[in-house]
């Protein structure tokens, strides 16, 4: 038996429910509607417009800073690795070390003679080193300049990052405002239509009076 879903004093609820059941069954039997159609309409989920207050300020400058810090950390780690490689070059010890110290001592004593002997033969090499040195200096200047530009770009990226986030937020807010304005337009249209009907009724009333 159907559960009592109506309450009313002074009427035969059971009888009314039976009449309702017959009406509903009759409509379904005639194929006027299907149970599923009604259920679809009953279970529609509302999708409210987003609230402008719900649009978050998503920009978090610390994210960018974190990524820069990450790059710095990576660089420092690389330097440490290079130092470790340098320190890992094996040092000469024992007999070989003693011979090496002796040769360095002798070489120190005869160094002016070696310098004289090599003076004429090493001029070309010296010039070459000079040229290389100036090239390295100009290269260093170029690298420094590049680093400067890199820093400038880094700042630009920060600013752009900021802009992109703000633009995204503002566009979202504009979309929400636009949707709200559309509702206002509909509201006004509805009001206007009501007032037009009212005007017609008023006209009819006035004409009838005359």
């Amino acid at each position: 038996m159907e559960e009592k879903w109506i309450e009313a004093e002074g009427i035969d609820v059971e009888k009314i429910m039976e009449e309702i059941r017959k009406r509903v069954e009759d409509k379904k039997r005639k194929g006027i509607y299907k149970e599923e159609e009604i259920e679809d309409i009953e279970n529609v989920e509302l999708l409210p417009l987003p609230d402008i207050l719900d649009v978050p300020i998503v920009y978090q400058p610390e994210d960018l800073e974190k990524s820069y810090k990450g790059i710095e950390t990576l660089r420092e780690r690389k330097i440490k690795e290079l130092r470790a490689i340098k320190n890992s070059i094996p040092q000469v010890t024992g007999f070989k070390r003693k011979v090496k110290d002796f040769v360095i001592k002798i070489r120190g004593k005869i160094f002016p003679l070696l310098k004289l002997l090599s003076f004429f033969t090493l001029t070309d090499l010296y010039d070459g080193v000079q040229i290389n040195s100036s090239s390295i200096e100009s290269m260093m200047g170029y690298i420094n300049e590049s680093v400067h530009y890199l820093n400038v770009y880094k700042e630009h990226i920060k600013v752009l990052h900021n802009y992109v986030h703000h633009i995204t937020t503002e566009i979202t807010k504009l979309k929400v405002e636009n949707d709200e304005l559309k509702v206002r337009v509909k509201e006004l249209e509805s009001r206007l239509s009501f007032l037009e009907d009212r005007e017609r009724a008023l006209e009819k009333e006035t004409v009838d009076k005359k």
Partner: protein
Amino acid sequence: MRVHQLLTSLTYGDAISNEALAIKKFLEDEGIESKIFGYYNHPKVSKYFNHYSSYLSESKPEDILIFHFSIGSPVSKIYFQAPAKKIMIYHNITPYNFFKNYHRILARECYKGRLELKKFVDKTDLGLGDSDYNRRELEELGFDNTGVLPIVMDFRKFDREGSRVIRNMFGDDKFNILFVGRVIPNKKIDEIVRFYAVYQKYFNPNSRLIIAGEYRGFERYLNDIYQTIGKYNLKDVVLTGHISFNDLVALYKEADLYLSFSEHEGFGVPLLEAFYNNVPVIAFDKGAVKETMNGGGIIIKEKKFDKVAALIEELRNNESMREAVLRSQQDALKKYSYENVKKILLSHINNLKEA
């Protein structure tokens, strides 16, 4: 003994102000001195109004103070300080979850309102709800002494023709289904519109749905309603927006049925207005609806659209059923008679005086 009232604003036409003025009249009829103190007032009722700042200098321990609770009221602090015995009348706060998807600020206010209400527990000698549903809420909050005072309804104001223009607009042969109330989510107007899509398409094409109530401030919910109207291509749904009282009377006069799917009502004044205007009422059983209807009209326990539509068709075509429903509605109104409410109020006051 003097019985004064305290409220945020005394205006013209709203339910709380009407009740405050009616209570003043009840008391004065019994020879009890009564003044209304508040924060704002409408010029039309200024002769009854006293500014709340002057209350404390007048208040005495043997007096009784009736406070009409409203959220964030600046007059609450006077209520807390007053030496008089205190009655608080609670007209309910809509649960915040109805508003959280549509009006975050109002949702927050409603949430805060319920917290604020707890501050009154120890300061109140008698908590009155305008329905037992509201009284139970007070009890759950911790109020020891509670009672019910139905809203004072002056139905005589409906004894008129109403706007002839509105009556011309809607007085055709269409079956008018009416709902009166603000277009807010707890009233479930979106469900009424979806129900109407079923009713008009499969049961009665020669019908009209009229939603009479203010919709400003809830545009996002209104958008959902417009979307629904658009989706089902509904032609005869009228959203009137705010209307004058004269228009409202005309709408009741032209309505063939009052339908409510509301999921939260602290009382439900329009249900009784429909009763008075001989409009058969079908309402979903939630909040204080059943209690307010007091055995009148038809209560539904489920919102099965095709079954409700068939029920309306039964009511439309079965004259004896319609007459029985209207009779039950007229009987139900007796509870809200001026004399009955006056008797209840005076008994609360006497009990408190003797306590």
